[in-house]
């Protein structure tokens, strides 16, 4: 079992509903987003287009953030999620430097200790049999979530049918987030 997500970039309109839903679900403070939507231009006038790249944590299966963690706070959950053990995090921020997707953020003060934080694919919802907030919120239904180890799952079939690719696959981080080309 390995949770994963596929995002159809042709459907994404850059509305940031996912970003806001994530914030509402996770209760992050001002300026801290587990999720972001990158906007970029493509082409030259008059054929230029605006494109969007929604980016949760990629939940890599060979995560650079885990390799650099000096205390073992970053770990891979049995179902494929890359998570942080709050009790072990010492706030060194090595993971932030190592993550090629800039998925890690830092809380400068939570009570008396510092903490690295990140998207957890809404584990608290998964445990209740619910989908991640960004998936259920997306108005254009660009996201599909499920078990990418199961070849019969919808998420796996979409990846195969549309030749879904991770973002920067050449880094060898084996992300669990795939994109259908926009």
């Amino acid at each position: 079992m390995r949770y994963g997500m596929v995002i159809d970039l042709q459907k994404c309109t850059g509305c940031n509903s996912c970003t806001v839903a994530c914030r509402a679900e996770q209760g992050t403070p001002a300026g801290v987003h587990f999720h972001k939507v990158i906007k970029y231009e493509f082409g030259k006038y008059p054929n230029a287009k605006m494109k969007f790249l929604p980016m949760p944590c990629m939940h890599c299966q060979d995560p650079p953030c885990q390799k650099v963690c000096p205390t073992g706070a970053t770990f891979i959950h049995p179902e494929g999620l890359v998570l942080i053990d709050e009790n072990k995090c010492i706030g060194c921020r090595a993971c932030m430097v190592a993550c090629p997707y800039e998925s890690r953020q830092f809380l400068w003060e939570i009570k008396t200790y510092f903490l690295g934080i990140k998207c957890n694919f809404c584990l608290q919802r998964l445990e209740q049999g619910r989908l991640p907030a960004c998936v259920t919120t997306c108005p254009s239904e660009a996201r599909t979530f499920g078990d990418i180890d199961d070849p019969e799952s919808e998420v796996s079939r979409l990846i195969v049918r549309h030749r879904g690719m991770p973002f920067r696959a050449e880094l060898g981080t084996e992300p669990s987030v795939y994109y259908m080309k926009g």
Partner: protein
Amino acid sequence: MSSATSPTNRRGGTYADLAGKLINLMVGNIEVPGGCLSCSFRGPIMGPTEDGTSAPQYEAVPRPFKFPPESATLKEFYPHQHTAPHLALKSILNPEKHHLPYTVEAWMSVGGNPIRQNAQPEAYVAGFKKLSFSVAIAFHMDECAILSDVLLPEHSALERVRVTPFYPQHQSMDNEVCGLKMIQYRDPVPTLFNTKHVDEIFTELAEKLGILTGEGGLYDHLNREIDWVDKTDGLNLNGEWKLDINRKYTLEEIYDRQIRGWPYNKSNWTLEDLRQNGYLEYWRPRKEFYLYYYFPDNQTRHPFYLLGLKTVGDRLKENLKQHQIPFPGVPHDDYIFDLYDPVVHWVETSETHPPKEYDLWAVNWKTPYYANDAGNLTGNPWLAEIYAKDPWEANVLLNPITAARKGLMEGDSVVVASRYGELEGRIRVSELFHPDTAGIAGSYGPGTLQSNPLNRGR
């Protein structure tokens, strides 16, 4: 070919729209599969008039002339008027010039803020100063709430229970949504303060005024009303589910009766069923998407010339002559009657002949997360954070060729000036913009004393 929105939202836009429709007519592309569909209601609404052309609907049906006028928005002078709060402002500031036989003394704001959502906030402030009494139904302390004599606090958007029909696209080219009939329910979040649902406020006001029940009362009106956009497909009070006009109902009871009487509620759902499931949908057969279906075999012809418009204009002109009055608020009558010509023609706007010293056109747009400022969307701090990080917002955007021509580089500070004002900003170069334009995101609420001072242009 779509002639929606951009060309129509300006003076003479009717003719841009008509030109588009004529082209579609000539290639047989009106109300056919894959073609240009008229907006809103799908049903037997475009029956032939006496001359065989389709009957006007919605705001194409003219309002009667009346003098002196009764409405502050001067509907009597604008037979096809949509919403016109700017005319109400002019009536407040200068009633005699607009032939109004009274002065406007009171104002009630509900869910809108004409001061903030207007390019001339100072003019509305001047209008409010002339009022003797104003009431605001508001969920936060915006300008209208601050200026009100009586403030009736309402729930914010997410605190309101909501039962609504899914409206078809207003101007639609595609047929994917034409067949979908749907009603939706949204659960409210707990209220933070001692507020009320806006409909409860109106109910209470009607009750205290003695116009809630009985003949001619609010409930009687609700019983007779049909949805303006979706007509008989809307959430109306139908048949046995009409209200007893002699007793009071809760909002939930009224919603329940609307749902039970909805023509596509084939499973006899109640409010509780809708609450449990979120939405109720019904897909009409595809053949019913097209208005041709209801009047086949050329029973109805689409007009090539807007003869109805000419008739309305002629009648309006005659009425002005009869009462020996000029058209209110314009320098000369031709400015108005130029737009009652039945034939497509070029209409000049204030920007048709701009002064030569201004070499760029300012263009603006809306982002999906700031689609409008209803409900103080632009005051939402979470969205403001996204906006602040968005490189295509809060900047002055120029095509690289234009930037190079002007000797400007990314990040340079500039002042953008027009005949109407100026603003400061930083340059971002972008291939998304025409070389003759300066892109400035908006309109996210012009500056007022209650907003970010950076938004206050000069």
